[in-house]
């Protein structure tokens, strides 16, 4: 999995496959984005090809972090397998998902 961040406060984009092996960079990213000021955090998932249950678990950690910091977490355009996973697990009811 790759994480693309610009420093201008634009959306963060994830690409590739999001699985257990990505937990270190993902947690680091979560720490960084909530340390920076702002209201909502947008993660663009349109280029993410695959997510497993460990990946979904990490999204829940990010959601918890957002709640603690009174921030809004928005997941943008999940597609393909990621979209199907969101549907099967009803994750779209837990997050603000933008199509």
């Amino acid at each position, binding site marked *: 999995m790759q994480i693309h961040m610009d420093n201008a406060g634009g959306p963060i984009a994830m690409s590739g496959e999001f699985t257990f092996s990505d937990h270190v960079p993902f947690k680091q990213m979560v720490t960084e984005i909530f340390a920076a000021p702002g209201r909502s955090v947008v993660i663009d998932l349109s280029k993410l090809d695959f997510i497993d*249950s460990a990946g979904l678990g990490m999204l829940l950690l990010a959601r918890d972090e957002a709640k603690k910091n009174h921030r809004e977490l928005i997941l943008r355009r999940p597609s393909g397998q990621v979209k199907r996973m969101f549907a099967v697990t009803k994750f779209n009811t837990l997050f603000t998902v933008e199509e």
Partner: protein
Amino acid sequence: MPLSAQGGEVTSEDRILSDDITGAKILIADDDPLCRQLVAGVLRQQKFTRLEFADGGRSALEQVRSFRPDLILLDMQMPDLNGLDVCGQLRADPDFADVPILLQTATVDRKKMGELFCGGASDFLSKPVNPSELIARVVAHIERWNSLRELRFYRERISRELEAARRMQFELLPEPAALQEAAHALGLRIASYNRPSSELGGDLWGVLPIDDGSFGIFLADFTGHGVNAALNTFRLHALIHEYKELHGDPGALVSMLNERLVRLLRIGQFATFLYVVVDHQKGEIRFASAGAPPAILVQGTAARARLCDTSSLPLGIERGVQYLTSKRRFPAGSLLLLFSDGLPEFPNAKGRRIGDKGLVTALNACPAGLTPKEVIDQLCAAAGITATSPLPDDTTIVCLDRRIAPRATPCDDGRAVRTPAAKQVPTNLSNGAQ
């Protein structure tokens, strides 16, 4: 201020060695008694106490086997058997394949030095003996040997414990012989496949007896794998058995398990769960899902396979979720397939995953009359899973059907029975690979 300006020169003789080092057993092999005394004197001065001696190559080999030293100092030139030969013989014995062996030699010939290392020496010591060099090399090798041994002990202990835990987890799964018998008595056949991705897994499945007309079957998959996920399977197993009165009501059981797991699991951990009550008397199944991969259902021998909608929140995320029970017909000739996401998400040699729809296609392509075990084998093959493939995720598959040949008449849909009953009965209930 330069550091060297403070205090005197520190030599190896000034260093206080720990008991772990000075307690090491050292064998000194030299045919010259004076040389043995000299080396022993240097070592004793550093508080090494467990010293033994050999006066030649052959006696060195005997001493090694009885004394089992932590380090061996071998003289290169001994009349009966030289140091290099002793070294070669010891290295050939698995017990002494990596014990530190220091060869003492007067040679400065670089080619000969190379031969010492090729012959299995850990290091060399120049002769005549230089006390600082002797101590420095002995200490370095004993330290290395001690840490190697500690690591080895640690690894052996952990792997013993993991093996014990693996056996305990395996015991949570239905016992194949009892399962076969119970299924057969109900006119059903059942087979399963369960393989963790490491010693311990986060998948669990089981069968719950309800009454004469029905029984329950569940499949759970915790996030992640390894020890953490495995411990959660034990928790879940205990919880499921705590709510026996809910075993006949899938929605109520799943809702209750969620309430309990929400309080137990850390944020980011959850379980997908599918619970199916197979009511063979009524010819129906009732199920409730918590984010599980869809079950695949074939309603009768002539029907096509299709996915059952299982979409819902996994267990352990949100409080107060009400899980609903769905109902489907399950007439004679039907087949039900449950699986954890390890199956549809297994990346084959080309990196492709079969997916839920691919499994349906593969199931529809199965020749008629297969036993549940054969169906599982076909689906694994279609997904690219072989007996030796390393699995990136824990994988469980349970296949159950009502296709046992009726005793006298052909199948109720008018087709002839395609598999000889005699072949089916003894083998078709066998539990799949574990």
